């Protein structure tokens, strides 16, 4: 549940901050100022990261407290690892939303593309063990790399590195794509 909430928050934030602003026509004035487009997009990506990080920090505090109160006995290190994996998973999709907004000025697409990617990854990550033919595809599932049950069984930090690389790739794509097109002014 927590990863899905975090992803929804990240996609909403990423779509609003770039495609949403462009659709509302507010990007035109900002980009007429002496700010490189890349820097404007980097600032928006950073804002998404801050929002997701704040969400994860709050979730960490709440879970740590609940563990104390109800005596769940979650080791703080494992909890931190689990939330790091949630953070990366959400940030990946938030930055995919920014990247989609950088490629095309549609808020609907900036929500739809990363949401579809998340849904597909979720299904593949959850079903690959049951449907054998899906098994080879687990490597394209962000959920698989994030770990199936990070809170109970811990995370593979080497696997999280794959998420870090994918997230960096999404940001790089956003920074490249924003420079290549017309601002939508219609």
């Amino acid at each position: 549940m927590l990863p899905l909430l975090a992803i929804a928050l990240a996609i909403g934030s990423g779509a609003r901050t770039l495609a949403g602003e462009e659709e509302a026509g507010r990007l035109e004035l900002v980009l007429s100022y002496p700010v490189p487009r890349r820097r404007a997009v980097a600032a928006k990506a950073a804002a998404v990261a801050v929002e997701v990080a704040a969400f994860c920090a709050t979730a960490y505090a709440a879970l740590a407290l609940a563990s104390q109160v109800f005596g769940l006995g979650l080791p703080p290190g494992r909890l931190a690892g689990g939330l790091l994996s949630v953070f990366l998973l959400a940030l990946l999709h938030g930055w995919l939303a920014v990247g989609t907004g950088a490629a095309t000025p549609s808020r609907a697409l900036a929500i739809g593309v990363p949401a579809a990617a998340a849904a597909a990854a979720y299904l593949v990550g959850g079903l690959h063990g049951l449907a054998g033919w899906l098994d080879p595809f687990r490597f394209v599932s962000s959920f698989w790399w994030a770990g199936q049950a990070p809170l109970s069984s811990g995370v593979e930090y080497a696997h999280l590195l794959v998420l870090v690389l994918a997230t960096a790739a999404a940001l790089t794509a956003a920074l490249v794509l924003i420079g290549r097109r017309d601002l939508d002014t219609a």
Partner: protein
Amino acid sequence: MTAAPAIETAALSKTYAGGVRALADLDLRVERGEVFAFLGPNGAGKSTTIRLLLDLIRPTAGRAWILGYDCRTDSVETRRRVGYMPGDLRLFDRLTGREQLDSLARLRGSVDSAWRRTLSERFAVVLDRPIRELSRGNRQKLGIVQAFMHRPPVLVLDEPTSGLDPLLQGEFRTLLHETVAGGASVFLSSHSLDEVQHVADRVAIIRSGRLTDVDSVERLRGRSLRHVTVTFSQPADPHAFASLEGVRVVGVEGVVVRLSAPVAAMDAVVKAAARHRLVDLVSAPADLEEIFLELYREEDDRA
């Protein structure tokens, strides 16, 4: 660099993704210290040109420079030197005017805050209410302040006075005069000759993405049209008018003769009319679209 004009374009062209040819082979040169009006009806390509200058959209062909800096490859340098007022200004509705200007000033880096205050006072800008509560005119004033607040050497203004009340239009004209007196240049788009004729030094006319004319305001005004309705006491012969340079007889109904005449021909029109006994003479300015039509007629005649 010092010799570079304020704005220069060479064969600047833009065809939008949908195939709309919005601008074709635009060659322009705006000198330093002049107000240059860019005049054309709706859909002529004015905003397209301006967005190309600011690197908001990319040309299909051709190049543009501001103060010698390439608008494509050096766009941060060009935008640093430009104050821009969008034709369709969109601000952050949740912010107050002051917060919006603060945020834009931070984006600029350095802004003369005393000058910003002076501008806000001169235009009676509403600073402490959320922008969503402001009228179009009050938003437009914020647009003016943000365009001028860093004292840019080049101003690019896309139909800046639409929505502004007449008193403030006068204040705005004064501001433009001061701006060019201080050595800066103004590129001002408009669809109304009346709006620019008292501020502009030169006027370029664009229609359907093509530059049709660049002229001084005086010359253009001389060519600008009047609708003249002459009422005689007796049915009169309109041929005396038809032979005058640039004059067309639009209609004759009994004692009433209707003409279209360039301002430059008004003296001859009045003298020709005065040879007969007059009941009335009314002269009204034609609108821009009619002036364009007349210009095209002249071009066709020459062709």
